[in-house]
């Protein structure tokens, strides 16, 4: 029975015993399909989050076994903690830079690979392959490439340029991490854009061209609006991914030099697992959750203003 049939049955026809039974079977089948994901989210998401909220209201020092209720003291401390806010600022810088570079590059590559040119399949595979490489392996290889005496500076030296100390210079460290992560993730966004571009009806573009629109105008006024739902998706998943970046920071910079690459999730890790201040780290986690939630909500609500077919 299709969706349309069910809709008709619900709205126009009184339910018979048989249709109610079928509806219940339908619902049961639907729930059974959704159950693994729902249970996963509840068990691995909601329950641990409940724990984190509970912990954030305590002073918990696991080594000495102390677990004392302190109410909102961790949050009061957090408000006055400059390190937390500077880490949020670093996280926003990281996310903004990553999003601009990633989405611009992904869109550019998708547009190029959407042309009927020789070798596009090879290039597509080339740019997508980092997505399936282990994050740790990817970062470890780059660690050697961007070392002060690594491959990139070696190559620059052959043309007479003395490269910076990429990961130890506060000016370059965050940018370097962002670029490494852009190359890692751009392939996924490129594929999403490419799939979306291939769904843009050729006749609409053709009509615009006949009306005298330049290629740039066709892209801005026809293509971009039609792929705007994909842009929204990419912006949302890239932002959320950027807000909890951890692996490249841990391997490449350990938050340094100084605190120039200490993003909030790394500060949370250090606070919990190195300083063993689990209660305070949980409070940071709760605030991070709220910030990500607000960002996602803002992006979602903004869709009515710029995403095609959203009202």
């Amino acid at each position: 029975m299709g969706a349309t049939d069910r809709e008709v049955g619900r709205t126009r026809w009184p339910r018979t015993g048989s249709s109610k039974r079928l509806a219940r079977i339908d619902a049961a089948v639907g729930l059974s399909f959704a159950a693994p994901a729902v249970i996963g989210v509840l068990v691995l998401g909601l329950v641990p989050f409940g724990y984190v909220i509970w912990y954030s209201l305590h002073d918990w020092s696991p080594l000495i076994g102390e677990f004392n209720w302190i109410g909102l003291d961790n949050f009061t401390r957090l408000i006055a903690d400059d390190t937390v806010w500077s880490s949020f600022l670093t996280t926003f810088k990281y996310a903004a830079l990553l999003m601009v570079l990633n989405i611009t590059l992904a869109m550019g590559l998708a547009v190029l690979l959407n042309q009927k040119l020789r070798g596009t399949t090879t290039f597509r595979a080339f740019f997508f392959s980092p997505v399936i490489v282990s994050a740790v392996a990817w970062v470890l290889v780059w660690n050697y490439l961007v070392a002060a005496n690594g491959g990139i500076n070696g190559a620059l030296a052959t043309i007479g340029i003395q490269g910076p100390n990429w990961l130890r210079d506060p000016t370059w460290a965050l940018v370097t991490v962002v670029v490494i992560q852009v190359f890692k993730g751009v392939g996924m966004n490129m594929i999403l854009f490419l799939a979306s571009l291939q769904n843009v009806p050729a006749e609409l573009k053709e009509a615009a061209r006949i009306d005298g629109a330049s290629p740039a105008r066709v892209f801005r006024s026809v293509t971009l609006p039609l792929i705007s739902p994909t842009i929204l998706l990419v912006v949302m998943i890239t932002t959320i991914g950027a807000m909890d970046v951890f692996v490249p920071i841990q391997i490449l910079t350990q938050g340094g030099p100084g605190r120039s690459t200490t993003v909030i999730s790394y500060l949370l890790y250090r606070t919990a697992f190195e300083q063993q201040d689990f209660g305070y780290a949980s409070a940071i986690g709760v605030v991070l959750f709220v910030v990500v939630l607000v960002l996602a909500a803002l992006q979602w609500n903004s869709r009515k203003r710029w995403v095609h077919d959203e009202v």
Partner: protein
Amino acid sequence: MNGSTNRRRFLTAAATLSAGAMVLAACSAGDDGGADGDTPDGPVELRMVMWSANEGHHEIFNEIADAYIAENPDLVSAVSFEPLTGSGYVNALTTQIAGGDAPDLAWVSEANAAQFVQSGVLYNLQPTFTETEGYDIDDLLDGAIDVWSADGEIYGYPFSNSPFGMYVNNDLLQAAGQPNPRDLMASGEWTWDKAMEIAAAVADGSSTTGFQASDDPYTNWNSALGAMWMSWGAAPWSEDGTECTFDSPEMVEFFDWFHGQIYDTGAVAEPGAEFDFASGQVGLRLSQLSSSTALGDDFAWDFVPMPDGPAGTVPVVGQGGVGVVARGDNPQIAADFLAYFTNPENSQLLAQFFPPPRQSLLTVETLSAAAPALTEEQIQGTVIDQALVGVTKAGHVNMSEIADPVRVELDALWVPEGDAATVMPAICEAISDSLAG
């Protein structure tokens, strides 16, 4: 059923689940799952966590454990040795304890010893060691058990008591026309200044570097430099750990000197550069006996004692210790097993891999098994003679709180214009609250 009813039901379910989670958390958080003093009904299983996954180590551990179980079938039915490798060892151990899954026994490095001993994580071993027949507790080197003791009681056994020495790439030194450190030792000229002079001559800035500390000084300051500043008579904090002495004249002098070796003489590689002694890229490397196992005969090398500093000769040891976790399920049985694991006979077995803290076992014959690549002269002069008088590298009861703020402040020094006289007081300002406790 309308949409708002559905939403209300969903929100009610979510809230119920959240509340349930919090109740669960309330029941479990902080539950140490620890010892309640009850005597177990039957033989128990013990678990020791460690940072080594070396097959040879585990073979010896299992051999000792099997013998213990055979002698004490009513006490212990099995002992497992769980490796937690990688730089996050302490974090993983702490997480196990926090999660109510405390191991029975755990390895702890000397840098964290004070924290684990003084915060009550480790169980008092003194009564068990004293009462165990043939344990010979007086055989333990006084200097070796200092950081594992509190109020005259011992809380950990430093199964590895390994002095720092200098590995020398003789081929690189010879190619740079530099004197041999052994000749300098003979003439009394083996000093840190001379070592760095040699290192600067060896370093070419790209494929080789002159001197490498025992760890990365730019991220792991205590592990890398802790054995060096003692030769300046410097210390990061007062003996009782409450007062910062990073800004003492000795410490400022040491860091100023080390900064000069990076940015003035080029003897030490700048931050972010990668070199490997075993690949023949480093002239001098500060390290311990265990590093010799990675060295082959690709180049001529030597292992000599640390050079003298302004404060004279200060031999320093780094340690790996093992203790019983007080919040484990069976601390007394674990302590009994540890007394067996580290008795004189089994210490001799362990000495196949680790320099022992027992004076009677500090012999060339014993240590030759631990480091077959080292010569008799190297073992006697660089390991045994130093271990007998060595002091243990500094740790602090609040080490986990101190480590990161110090690293952050030190980053201001690791630039060409860095000034130790400015940075050191800033470190004290950053950590004074943590030191005061």
